[in-house]
């Protein structure tokens, strides 16, 4: 009981002394604290209100042959697998990478599916139809035109080099070499991760290797099952590698220099694609038979 009385007394005293202390202090420090207070309040000072960390961006370019020869099973398979692929790529983007997708189709004409790269979270596949000839050269020229800071790669923050994935089932019907020559001068292309898929026996792997720069990143699909598998392997692997910082081996035994890392991702992509392709089975019906 005694204790409680003392307690109550104590609080009253505390309140009294505090009030007098405030009054005493108020006058002399007013100016200083007002200036300091302004400084503390002239911006959103909430320590919990943050925006997401600034993310690096990665654009995946799909270059898709929609010429007449793609009609039927090939196009049906392609449309289906692309629809299924989008959610899989969605999982790829890490905290610090925003993945966007741009789709360029080429037949007699060259056409973008959307007028800008679309964030993977919002991307919806618009089903493609096939007709016309294979204007690969025109497609490469169009890609070169858009693959610039003022074009499709206009993210204000850092970008990873883009992933460029070409799918075709025939020999180009135009001068693809002229288009490729223009593209090869583009730095984004130079540093980009390039892969290509030949569909059926008409597609020319040498043309595709010219495009990717190495035979390791060119694969071939001869059947519907393979087509779906290969598209997934290439798209997922290349976006995984493309959306991350380079992976480092730590057993070099010497200090890593420019030459060790040059095109390291493209080499890694080649290795991984070859490994994965080697593992897949090849026992369903070829595209070329049973028509």
């Amino acid at each position, binding site marked *: 009981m005694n*204790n409680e009385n*003392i*307690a*109550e*007394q*104590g*609080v009253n*005293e*505390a309140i009294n*002394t505090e009030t007098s202390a*405030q009054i005493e*202090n*108020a006058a002399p*420090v007013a100016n200083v*604290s007002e200036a300091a*207070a302004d400084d*503390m*309040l002239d*911006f959103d*000072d*909430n*320590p*919990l209100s*943050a*925006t*997401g*960390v*600034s993310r*690096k961006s990665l654009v995946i370019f799909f270059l898709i042959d929609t010429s007449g020869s793609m009609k039927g099973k090939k196009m049906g398979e392609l449309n289906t697998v692309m629809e299924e692929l989008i*959610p899989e790529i*969605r*999982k790829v983007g*890490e*905290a*610090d990478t925003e993945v966007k997708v741009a789709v360029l189709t080429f037949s007699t004409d060259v056409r973008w599916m959307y007028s800008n790269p679309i964030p993977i*979270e919002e991307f919806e596949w618009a089903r493609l139809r096939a007709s016309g000839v294979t204007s690969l050269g025109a497609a490469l020229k169009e890609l070169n035109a858009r693959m610039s*800071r003022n074009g499709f790669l206009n993210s*204000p*923050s*850092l*970008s*990873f080099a883009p992933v460029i994935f070409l799918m075709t089932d025939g020999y180009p019907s135009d001068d693809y070499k002229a288009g490729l020559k223009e593209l090869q001068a583009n*730095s984004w292309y130079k*540093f980009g991760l390039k892969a290509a898929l030949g569909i059926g026996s008409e597609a020319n792997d040498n043309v595709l290797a010219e495009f990717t720069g190495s035979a390791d990143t060119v694969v071939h699909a001869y059947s519907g099952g393979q087509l779906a598998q290969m598209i997934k392997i290439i798209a997922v692997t290349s976006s995984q590698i493309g959306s991350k*910082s*380079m*992976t*480092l*081996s*730590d*057993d070099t035994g010497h*200090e*890593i220099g*420019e030459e*060790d*890392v*040059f*095109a*390291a*991702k493209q080499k890694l992509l080649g290795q991984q694609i070859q490994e994965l392709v080697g593992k897949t089975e090849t026992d369903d019906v070829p595209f070329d038979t049973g028509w």
Partner: protein
Amino acid sequence: MTELEIGQEVELEFGGKAQVLSVIGSGGQGTVYLVRFNGQKWALKWYDIDKMKKPKEFLKNLRSNIADGPPDNKFLWPKYLTKEAEDGTFGYIMDLKPEGFDSFVDILNTYKLEVDPLTGRAVKKDVKFNSLTAMITAVINIVNSFRLLHRAGKSYQDLNDGGFFINVNTGAVLVCDCDNIAPDGSNFGIGGKPGYMAPEVVRGITQPNVQTDKYSLAVVLFKLLFRGDPMEGEKVVRDVCLTESSELKHYGQNAVFVYDPNNASNRPVRGIHDNVIKFWRIYPDYIKDAFIRSFTTGISDPTKRIIENEWQKLFIRLRSEIIMCGCGRTNFASMFVQPNEKTFKCPKCGMEFVTLGFSNRSYRMPLFLGCKFYECEINPESEEFMKVAGELVENKLKPGVIGIKNCSDRKWRAKMPDGVFYDIAPGKGFPVWQGLEIDFGQIKAQI
């Protein structure tokens, strides 16, 4: 057998079978599956040994980690190994991530994607700390878990944003991906992620170890508090395209901290690094100084990096300096006006806060209704930073009377206005008054 099929059964080393139910996710070294074992659900990590450099050594290390057990319960530690398959592949099972924890990646993004099972559409859901105390508690928990790991003589090796789950309501932390943890000095082939890796690891001149863990830990803490990359500023953004060689340069050979006081070449860029610019104004100097040291002298000299115990002390201090003002403004004491050395004042509403000074430290703790101090703050022998020792409360029988409640299990002594010290038993309290002195035993405090 690099991939397991749904429904497949995997034999465990010490008997029993785990049945694969679904895929949880896949990473650089293998895939994690949801499995059923002994009637309960577990996570099974199954390795793709083709992607591993030293699978035999890796397995041996995993086995000894399982035998040693986790440093404490904050680790999602490997529990049981599977039998080795004929081709040498193997895996282990571990506990599932409990409900209520979000990944560090989602916290940095401030949202997570949840797929609506009906439409298949991904919907964004906010992921944010619900209080400043929870966020700083999470930091203390992260630091503490690495302190315990390093004290056990092990290093984590591949510290990055995929390594934690955090409860944003409480600040509880779970360290996951514990399979690369190895005795300090050993490495079983894990590379890492530039941005998180110490520059000497990026450059290939050192293998991951306890010292490189300390660098990665500083990056993790910086990202959590400042919501940006400590090395990504003007110098890096000017490169536009982040190629392999620019990563080697900006995170290895020529890494420059964005707030290096002696090198302004890599300052954060408005419009891109707004978080870092904003939060650098908010945090008190002693926190900023620790990051400056980590990312300037600590870049070239690993021994100058902040040790975990030091981080832990700094953040326990920071937690004690959080003020929740009656007007709704919550911030660190450094963001309040100090009309005199013993008082803080809210710049928004003018409310004043008295402070408590402790005999073992130079800074003072602001008092507000609901503020707490912890066992480690009143007992030099205690490391218990989560155990509440005292709280500022309103007397339940006398509304308006504010005092400190003894929540510890030891007796304190407090000086009352009559000048006499009275015993304060656990569960009891005493009023806050101008001449208050508290004797916690070895540590004393006064208003």
